[in-house]
């Protein structure tokens, strides 16, 4: 069979045989598959015939062929990118015949006598570099010229930002907003306030709603829930205090906790736990004290009292711990 019978679209590597039809429906599935494969091989061969005869360039990975544009037209995935409308300044500049001139990035700064950037950080004529502003006749008394300069700059920046937003809005209307920019609506500012309120997020609203729901005598326990309303988020206590009194179970938890912290602290400084110098010092001081005590023993006989005191203390402690258990 010749290739004229087949429609070939090399752009998609597609071949189509519109003339073929089965003279008699194949009796079994194997026959059908066999016939299809045979016909398919023919078509594939005819694609290959045209494809391999295209001029090719040798590459390390194999011969490269430049495919012709496809003849079967397929729909686009997204609309064509729309041209950006001119900004207000661009319109004005066109009307007035103003053309962009290229400016140097670096400018000589007379204040400091060096070359500096035109814009941005550490730029020419930076506010911080101006030590003196000469007084003029028009100056008002009691006005800080430096503060005025700064305020003017701030105003200019704000105005530019406003213009930018206006231009973006204009572009959004046509649907030609740059892909990475989104214009999000915020809540209307309350009259009288200067700043626009921040947009309240869904989570914040839910929190507020659940907080308001608990403002009944029962703490919101018996309230009817609206369809779709979620149960309040924070139920019950936030923070638990462990019992201070020692005991078993939870009672011993407090001790464990403090021990854990202590162990951590001690193990952290374990390498310096034995200060040899200090130990020797202490030993020496003790020795000295003993010697002194021996000298003054004759006058005072308080040594017998000391062990008694300790006994009393111990008994007291035991008493309290027992009480704690009984509770």
């Amino acid at each position, binding site marked *: 069979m010749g290739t004229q019978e087949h429609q070939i679209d090399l752009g998609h590597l*597609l*071949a189509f045989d519109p003339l073929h039809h089965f003279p008699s429906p194949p009796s079994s599935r194997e026959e059908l598959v066999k016939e299809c494969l045979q016909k398919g091989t023919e078509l594939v061969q005819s694609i290959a015939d045209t494809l391999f005869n295209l001029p090719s360039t040798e590459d390390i990975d194999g011969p490269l062929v430049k495919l012709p544009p496809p003849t079967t037209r397929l729909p686009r995935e997204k609309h064509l990118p729309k041209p950006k409308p001119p900004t207000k300044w661009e319109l004005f500049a066109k009307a007035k015949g103003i053309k962009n001139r290229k400016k140097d990035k670096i400018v000589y700064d007379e204040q400091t006598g060096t070359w500096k950037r035109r814009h941005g950080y550490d730029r020419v004529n930076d506010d911080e570099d101006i030590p003196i502003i000469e007084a003029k006749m028009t100056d008002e008394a009691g006005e800080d010229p430096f503060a005025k300069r700064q305020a003017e700059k701030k105003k200019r920046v704000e105005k530019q930002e406003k213009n930018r937003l206006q231009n973006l809005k204009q572009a959004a209307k046509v649907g030609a907003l740059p892909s990475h920019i*989104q214009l999000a609506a915020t809540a209307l500012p309350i009259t009288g306030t200067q700043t626009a309120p921040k947009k309240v997020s869904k989570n914040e609203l839910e929190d507020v709603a659940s907080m308001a729901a608990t403002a009944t005598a029962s703490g919101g326990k018996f309230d009817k829930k609206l369809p779709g309303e979620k149960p309040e988020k924070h139920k019950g206590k936030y923070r638990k205090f462990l019992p201070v009194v020692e005991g078993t179970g939870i009672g011993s938890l407090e001790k464990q906790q403090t021990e854990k912290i202590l162990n951590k602290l001690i193990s952290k400084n374990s390498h310096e736990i034995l200060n040899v110098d200090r130990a020797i010092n202490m030993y020496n001081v003790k020795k000295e004290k003993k010697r002194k005590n021996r000298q003054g023993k004759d006058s005072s006989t308080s040594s017998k009292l000391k062990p008694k005191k300790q006994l009393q203390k111990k008994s007291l402690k035991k008493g309290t711990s027992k009480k704690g258990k009984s509770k």
Partner: protein
Amino acid sequence: MLKIKTPKSGKAKREIEKRAPKLVESGKKTLILQGTKTSNVLNAVLAEIYHLKKDSAVRYTRKNENIRPFESGGETSLEFFSLKTDCSIFVFGSHSKKRPDNLVIGRTYDHHIYDLVEVGVENFKSMESFTYDKKLAPKVGSKPFIAFIGEGFESVDELKHLKEVLLELLRGEVVENLNLAGLDHAYICTAVSSNRVFFTHCAMRLKKSGTIVPRMELVEVGPSMDLVVRRHRLPNDSVRKEAMKTAKEQPKKKVKNVSQDVIQGKVGKIYVPDQQVGSVALPNKAKGLKRERREAKMKHETNDRAPKKQKENSE
């Protein structure tokens, strides 16, 4: 009040820019998903379609309750998924008593449904059931050959539509330059009757024939199935006209450092970096010219003499 929202990180910005409409598009992604009920056959079909298109497909494995592409209101969540995953072809599987093993293949334009074709799957044979030499197994992402056989694809309206949709689904990445060594598989679709299409996937064996063109041999590698056309919806005429628009002029790449001159013609600018005389390799490697030696010598000359003198003084 309006607020300007921009991505906070460079990566996010690049990701968004990838999704922006382009003058020349580079291929569509496929979303593969199913309804509340599927059959074993359908699960296998969806899995294998995903397998064939692994480089440019997204597979949703959860049940989707309210997707009914042909009914009004049943396409909203589908359109949302298309927007979310940036896919513009979808393959949706569902199984019911009325329409067993149902497969809806559709396309979207601007994340709105463009057209739909509904087919039933019959006589499905999975990839695993075919035995062949594994050396022939097609690679992921290679460009396939596609062959359509039968007059049905031209005379019957539904099949004509199915052909276009299948072509878009199967064609793979849109490329300008093709490596001939990478050709390894072909899809064969045959119109058996007015509503039945036999679909199979074959590997190609390129054999020497004595000429430039190799002799092709097809080996069935699966999956293979019968697609029975059920319902279909053609695109709206106005939408179709809109979607078929192409850019007239191709975007030209900016050529740097080349300019045209009236007198000299084409002028190119070449950047020549400063000559690094110190690090140039010398033709003959004389020992005395080695840098370390020279430097060491210089060091010795300056450092060593002073301490020696001091020693003498001290003694």
